[in-house]
């Protein structure tokens, strides 16, 4: 049995309550800035119902993930693959996972740089922003799991208060825009929820931090707590968006959330959206850190390269890939690809894996 070479001493462990922030922090990223129009596209004024359905889906998928993890003590997904499928199939599966995780990190990185370029610094070349963000990522990831947990705690704490600013667009709310309620059938709603799923992805982090969590017995309640927080956040943002914008107007808005922030005005600070966009770096930074940490552990697991070297390799790949994606079309393309694939990897695959393990009773550690 080759468990990861990371030593699991107590100083490497994280407190279980931090799992809530890691789940929530990793779920909320770039998607919340502009996902509204894609869901509106499918289910119009019922978009908020689709968001709730997507939230329920995350709870179901997380339940399966936790069930799988509980069967294998102290193992992460990479180890479980190896235990269940054997050496080579596990390598292939792990490789797919790594590519997927890196891809979603790439969409986050590229998406945020796109926002900075469109709103604040159109003349700054992408590679400078890329390089500075990736340097920060190297610094964070080499700090280890406890640094990641700390950053996601601060990321959530320092940005969640912006939810209060939704009071400003609510002053212009037009409740006619939600009517007629329940005007779509369940198929359309599910389609909307599937569109939403890419923005709720991120809770797969539990598959990888599980070995490091101290009190594993009470982990589920924190995971579900984090998921519930995310769902509430998205429902509020979606409702305010629907009330503030006309549907047809919303379809033209790439970053509807920032457009709503545009009307926030304080006597000492006009144009609050610039503060908000800058703060968004914290929101997306913990996504980036955790994704690259997962990828780093994976590369180390399948190839045996030292973790630090693996990280440098991954960051190098990310840097080049990110510089290739210059136009809005190419960014939309990768977002579509990884969004589509993500649904199957995060929501469907855990169920498949769970069924396989239950049917064949493979490799489970008997307690």
């Amino acid at each position, binding site marked *: 049995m080759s468990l990861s070479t990371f030593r699991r001493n107590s100083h490497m462990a994280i407190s279980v309550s931090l799992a809530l922030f890691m789940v929530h922090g990793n779920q909320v990223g770039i998607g919340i800035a502009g996902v509204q129009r894609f869901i509106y596209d499918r289910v119009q004024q019922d978009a908020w119902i689709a968001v709730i359905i997507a939230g329920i889906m995350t709870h179901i998928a997380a339940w399966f993930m936790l069930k799988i993890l509980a069967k294998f003590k102290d193992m992460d997904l990479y180890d479980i693959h190896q235990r269940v499928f054997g050496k080579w199939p596990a390598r292939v599966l792990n490789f797919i996972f790594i590519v997927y995780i890196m891809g979603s990190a790439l969409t986050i990185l590229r998406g945020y740089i796109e926002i900075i370029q469109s709103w604040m610094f159109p003349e700054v070349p992408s590679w400078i922003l890329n390089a500075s963000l990736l340097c920060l990522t190297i610094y964070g990831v080499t700090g280890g799991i406890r640094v990641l947990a700390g950053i996601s705690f601060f990321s959530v704490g320092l940005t969640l208060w912006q939810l209060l600013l939704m009071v400003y667009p609510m002053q212009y709310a037009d409740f006619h825009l939600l009517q007629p309620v329940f005007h779509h059938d369940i198929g359309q709603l599910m389609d909307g929820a599937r569109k939403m799923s890419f923005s709720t992805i991120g809770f797969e982090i539990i598959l990888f931090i599980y070995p490091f969590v101290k009190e594993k017995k009470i982990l589920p309640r924190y995971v579900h707590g984090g998921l519930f927080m995310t769902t509430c956040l998205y429902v509020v943002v979606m409702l305010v968006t629907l009330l503030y914008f*006309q549907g047809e*107007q919303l379809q033209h808005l790439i970053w509807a959330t920032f457009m709503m922030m545009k009307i926030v005005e304080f006597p000492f600070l006009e144009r609050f959206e610039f503060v908000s966009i800058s703060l968004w770096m914290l929101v997306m930074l913990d996504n980036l850190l955790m994704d690259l940490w997962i990828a780093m552990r994976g590369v180390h697991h399948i190839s045996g390269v030292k973790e630090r070297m693996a990280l440098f390799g991954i960051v190098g790949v990310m840097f080049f890939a990110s510089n290739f994606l210059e136009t809005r079309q190419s960014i939309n393309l990768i977002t579509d690809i990884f969004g589509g694939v993500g649904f199957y990897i995060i929501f469907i695959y855990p169920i498949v894996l769970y069924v396989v393990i239950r049917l064949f009773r493979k490799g489970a550690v008997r307690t």
Partner: protein
Amino acid sequence: MRRFRLLIHYLLVVVLLNGCGEQHVLEKLGLAVAVGYDLSKDGKLLGTTVFYQIDPEARELVTVISGTAHTSKGLTVAQNRESSKKIVGGQIRVVVYHDELARKGILSLVENLTRDASIGSNVYLTVAKGRAYDILTHRYPENSNIGIYLYQAIRQNVEGENMISSKLHEFMKDYYAVGKDAVMPYIERVKNELHINKIALFRDDRLVAEITTREGFFLKILRERYNKGELEINISLDKKRLFTVIEHISSKKQIKVLDLEKPRFSVKVKMTAQIQEMAEKIDLSKPEQLKKVQKAIELAVKKETEHLLEKLRKHDVDPVGFGEIYNIAIQKSGKKKLSQEEVREIMKRAKYEVDVEIKILRTGVIG
């Protein structure tokens, strides 16, 4: 220690990278405060920009420049050629459109304001009688900056509820609504003063009619709600015509569709107010007298509201949003959502049943 050094290096890079962004030195910028658009004789756009100069040695604090081009961004380029300072749009507060231009449609001009991330959403849009150029370049001896003067005049009236607000984001929302039309304040220069005594009514993005601010009061009752409005109204009491002023009006409206086939709406308005002035001595401490006055005011408000609705239908505009409410009703009855043209066609035949209920809370400090 190594990590500390890494951090120092990173911070150093961040500090140095700050120089890479475009610099905005206040002395080198022309902060646009008000922008005017006209139709020039050769069919091009004539743009006028009023801007602040942050220059302690300048004799005049305000500069006005103009230029012609085919697009609004082209105007900025043309105006920059005439200016020693870079014109930036972050402080634009008022946009003035020539009424001739507004009659031809202004969607592309308004939409370009939203497309530019540097321009805020809280910009007031107005229509001017005559050329915006004449209004913005005129010297007003009592006001040093026409841009700020105009902005404060509009804002003061909007916040005092004497004028319907038409900020950029509100105009866009109304424009995109199916079955609701936008409005703007209609400004006019009378010698050395600016008057806002009309409201411009839009059909889609074209100016089609205007109503007085007095009619605007009744439009605002139907469009939104009042919290502190005031109104001078002519009532008939015991076969005598007399004037009274009601203040601190707070109003609520309820619009329902009575009939889908022959479109018929019930418009219920509930108001509470305080009598501030009576042109004649009437003892208001007697309940039956007060009741009489109350009934008389109700009748007068109802009459004027009906008169306004008739006028709106005659001009084929719907700033109240009856079409929107009709559209919801038709969807609830199981039919498909109507398009803008269909709604407009149906609204031509609409009938309204107005019902006004006024509660007099106080009669000032005397009975």
